[in-house]
């Protein structure tokens, strides 16, 4: 009875649908490929980068394989992770509408609000799976190709391997939070159409636009409102002591985006005629 009220069964069934799809696994595999490509390329090249050259942390990768995940996260954040998020979030409602399964879910009856919430939570699970896949693949390939040892943080402190794994998990969680606002935008866009590809593209465009706006100095007044603003600040978690400020700000910002676009999605979806 308890499980029923909370919709846990629906949630599990939602995850089952998501993880039955080959597409989901293909995206997770592609995410895992990022640190692998990075590590292999670094291992094969004979040149040693001077500190400060190339992406941050890249120099550290050769000294300590555990940095691979962090460097890969920096590479994946601007485009690749948002791409996978837009595929999943854009598909939430539009995908069901496109298949026609939406009408059968609604007359089952699933309840429109309940479906919306479950869809959003499931897309968060995917993001979580994606960020952890990236960190775990990074640590694994790093450990295979490079020496592994206690990690020297940006602030010069050294933490144990065990603690380094904790930091990896924190970075994965941080990135999941970072992408949660975008997922809400995708959910809303997904209620607007019955063509999932359209919703996916539009969602990806929003993150692109947000990134571009964030790079125009004249628009600085709006920068801290953009959902991409804190994306790369996960580096603050790699200091000792951890600087929680950006994490907290990020959470507040993302909750704002979730509230606004969740409300828009609710307003749209609960009054929409399902004609697909």
């Amino acid at each position, binding site marked *: 009875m308890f499980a029923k009220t909370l919709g846990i069964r629906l949630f599990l*069934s939602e995850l089952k649908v998501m993880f039955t799809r080959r597409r989901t696994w293909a995206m997770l595999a592609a995410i895992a490929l990022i640190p692998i490509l990075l590590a292999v390329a670094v291992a094969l090249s004979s040149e040693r980068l001077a500190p400060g050259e190339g992406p941050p942390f890249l120099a550290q990768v050769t000294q300590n394989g555990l940095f691979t995940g962090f460097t890969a996260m920096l590479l994946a954040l601007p485009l690749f992770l948002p791409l996978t998020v837009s595929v999943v979030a854009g598909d939430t409602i539009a995908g069901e509408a496109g298949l026609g399964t939406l*009408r059968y879910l609604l007359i089952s*009856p699933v*309840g429109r609000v309940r479906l919306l919430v479950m869809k959003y939570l499931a897309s968060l699970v995917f993001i979580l799976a994606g960020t952890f896949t990236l960190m775990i693949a990074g640590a694994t390939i790093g450990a295979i190709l490079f020496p592994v040892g206690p990690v020297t943080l940006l602030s010069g402190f050294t933490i144990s391997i065990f603690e380094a794994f904790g930091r990896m998990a924190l970075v994965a969680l941080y990135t999941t939070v970072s992408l949660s606002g975008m997922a809400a935008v995708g959910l809303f866009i997904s209620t607007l159409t019955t063509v999932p590809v359209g919703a996916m593209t539009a969602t990806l465009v929003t993150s692109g636009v947000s990134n571009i706006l964030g790079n125009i100095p004249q628009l600085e007044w709006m920068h801290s409102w953009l959902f991409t603003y804190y994306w790369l600040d996960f580096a603050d978690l790699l200091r000792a002591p951890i600087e929680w400020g950006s994490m907290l700000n990020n959470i507040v910002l993302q909750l704002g985006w979730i509230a606004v676009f969740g409300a828009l999605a609710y307003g749209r979806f609960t009054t929409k*005629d*399902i004609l697909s």
Partner: protein
Amino acid sequence: MVKQLAIETSGLTKRFGDQKAVNSISLEVPSGSVFGFLGPNGSGKTTTIRMLLGLAEASEGEIKLLGTEIPKDLEKALPRVGALVEGPAFYPFMSGRNNLLRIDAADRFSDASTRIQRVESALDRVGLHNAGNKKVHAYSLGMKQRLGLANALLKPRDILVLDEPTNGLDPQGTREVRNLIRSLSAEGITIFLSSHLLSEIEMLCSHVAVMSAGKIIAQGLIEDLRNEEPTRLILRTDDIDAAVETLKANGIGKAKILGDQITCEVDPALDVASLNAKLVRKKVSVNEIRLQRSSLEEKYVKLTGEGFEVVR
């Protein structure tokens, strides 16, 4: 006693822009009936069904489904309704069985402890037991249609809303679905059957409503509707004049003559055998004599027009 209505609408209207897809219809579907919802493609049948099931909002009018108001108490009614709307729709990358499990899990009123058993018996009922583990993308259209019916039968229902249920089925499958509908009806389930196939409606239904261009242009017992059209006597003879005279003497007038054939409207209860005997006694040579019963098709064409052109 007032007859119970499974579906009742009054002044139900759906506007898309300026166009009225459904124009002030008042449906009365008696409980326990097999109700045919007949109309050409594009006449507003599916839009009506979408409103009945709360998928689309009515622009005007009221709906009562199983005694509850739609859309206000939609969730009270829906668990008692099985439906097939505008063709089946499933996740192609999942098996038929998993698709049913998924939809049943979405239903917040369904009992999880009986889920597997209910899914199995629904698959059995539509003859998909052996194909349950196949992925839906490998299903033929007919198998998808059956799976759609299985979905409608996941729980004991009071009414089944079936939109073109035999679409895409081969003749054998069509027969099976019709038999299934008959047996479900025999269990006391009200069947609301939307179709553009006149023969299907005529074969299965006790009641019918005819839609055309968004309006209901006829509604009632199928027998009554059929009887609105006259029964005709067809008589072929070489002695036209003598025959006409004899017919007149027996109270049958207004004969239309075409070649050697006389056609006239008669009482459906006319005794053809004794009329034939009378004609023979008058030395009229009868080549053929028969009654042409009114058909629903005649009535339908009269109501909806012969035209092949899309009405709007």
